[in-house]
């Protein structure tokens, strides 16, 4: 055997057995920060699970999740895809200027169902003043950053359709125009599917008149950058390595107002709308209102008697810090987790204003608005 052959043979053997052995000796990981998911652990062996085939299925997943140097391989895969001009992963497009954009599909029947659920609400809660704000997602505003021929349905068209369907039965808060106008600023995160504080600010400013208050100006707040290493949900979804992280900015009022925030389920309370600890976790967007809760009550030091319920998805988290400056009480309800009777809630707490706040992608697909039909 020539030397070359021996070398090739050696490399080959190292590769085959080396990786096999490393797999055996490497430590199991619990959580993949980059992908934001829990990794499978060694399944428990039982006779039943072996016969039914569950054990072997689980074992396969376990092996691929715990593969040695997983992070490196996944990264390599993404690099290869980029070099070979792959423009999409898991429904997320690698857009221009380091934008990750999630495509918006043409809405199906769920959109109509959700419209009907809100119409049901309007009919049943007739003494309530109701507002609706549906925010476009980043792909609706920055669609020129999409790669060539990447399919994404027009959000403007859907929003116009929405407004028509409600036909003035609800106070419709249009924010598409203003967001489009201010797109030169960083109104959406590049690596996350949410809008930023400044994006939410423009929506607040645009909604103010119809909601009956005078908005604060931008320089009534001091803007602070609280993070410059935020990698959001789109980044996790697309495994898009080698992209610059986002910054998170926060608008702190210069005027004097205090808040009392109560997270009902865990009986936690706090005097700030921000939960700073979350900046050290994976999902840094949870700095706003401490992330996802089924019910959050915010009492401000204002005494104007205005009480509002916000029925929402997570776009509300960045928005509510502005809104809280104009209401005595805000009760934030997330229908994904809150399945009790909403009409009784409005009644008991003597609330007569309701804001529905969703992003368009969620509004088109979410299956939990049906809980309005109590």
């Amino acid at each position, binding site marked *: 055997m020539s030397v070359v052959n021996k070398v090739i043979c050696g490399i080959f053997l190292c590769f085959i057995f080396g990786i096999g052995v490393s797999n055996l000796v490497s430590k199991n990981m619990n959580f993949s920060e980059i992908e934001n998911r829990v990794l499978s652990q060694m399944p428990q062996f039982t006779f039943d699970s072996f016969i039914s085939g569950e054990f072997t299925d689980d074992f396969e997943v376990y092996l691929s999740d715990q593969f040695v140097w997983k992070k490196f391989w996944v990264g390599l895969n993404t690099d290869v895809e980029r070099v070979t001009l792959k423009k999409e992963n898991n429904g997320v497009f690698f857009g221009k200027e380091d934008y990750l954009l999630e495509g918006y599909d043409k809405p199906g029947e769920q959109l109509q169902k959700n419209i009907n659920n809100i119409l049901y609400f309007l009919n049943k809660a007739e003494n309530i003043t109701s507002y609706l704000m549906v925010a476009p997602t980043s792909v609706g505003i920055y669609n020129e950053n999409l790669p060539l021929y990447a399919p994404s349905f027009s959000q403007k068209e859907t929003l116009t359709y929405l407004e028509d369907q409600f036909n003035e039965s609800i106070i419709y808060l249009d924010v598409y125009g203003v967001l489009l106008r201010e797109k030169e600023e960083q109104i959406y995160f590049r690596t996350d599917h949410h809008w930023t504080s400044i994006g939410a600010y423009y929506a607040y400013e645009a909604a103010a008149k119809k909601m009956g208050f005078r908005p604060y100006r931008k320089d009534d707040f001091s803007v602070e950058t609280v993070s410059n290493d935020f990698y959001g949900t789109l980044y996790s979804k697309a495994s898009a390595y080698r992209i610059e992280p986002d910054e998170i900015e926060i608008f702190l009022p210069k005027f004097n107002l205090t808040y009392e925030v109560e997270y009902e*389920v865990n009986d936690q309370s706090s005097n700030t709308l921000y939960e700073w600890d979350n900046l050290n976790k994976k999902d840094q967007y949870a700095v706003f209102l401490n992330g996802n809760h089924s019910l959050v009550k915010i009492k401000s030091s204002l005494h104007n008697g205005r009480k509002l319920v916000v029925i929402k998805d997570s776009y509300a988290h960045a928005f509510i810090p502005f809104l809280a400056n104009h209401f005595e009480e805000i009760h934030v309800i997330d229908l994904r987790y809150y399945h009790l009777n909403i009409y009784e809630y409005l009644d008991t707490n003597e609330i007569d204003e309701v804001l529905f706040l969703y992003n368009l992608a969620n509004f088109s697909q979410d299956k939990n608005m049906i809980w309005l*039909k*109590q």
Partner: protein
Amino acid sequence: MKRILSLLVFIAILSLLVGCTEQSIDEKEKAPKVSLEEIATQIKEQIAEDMKANGAGEDVLVDGNLQSYIETDLKESEEDDPAVAILLEKMQLNKEEFNSGIVIAAMMNVNSDEIILLEASDEAHVDKLKESLERELEAQTHTWEQYLPDQYEKVKKNIITTKGNYLLYVTYEHPEKIKEVFNQNFE
């Protein structure tokens, strides 16, 4: 030597074939020993036990009510309990297709736990009911996939299983425990 070898090859092929066949269809079980309500009670006891092991107080299960969970009897009238109508519509279930149905789910906490028990009114409806459960799994996936990886993990481990006319849907930290409780009633 040759014979032994061919025997080995034969066994290897046989085991391959066994491995590749669909799961056996000897699921034609008879009815369970107890009612669906009773199975639900056993399941709640299992959950209560797990909650206590995790440090919950002694009063997690009082008079059949599991703390911070809500139980819906799908056979009840829609007027008495609006949640019935919601769940039927959400899963596109038809009341005639099952004799009894129970849903146990978190009431208002950020928790993806959900257990559904159904007894088909006729063998012919089992597949249709199973579709409804798969629809629910799709909805749960959509609700939980974006954030909260620990809750989504439970949804990913979801089990849908059938015994004769009986169906079980489990999204739970230890779904195999619930399945075990369910299966025990059919032995």
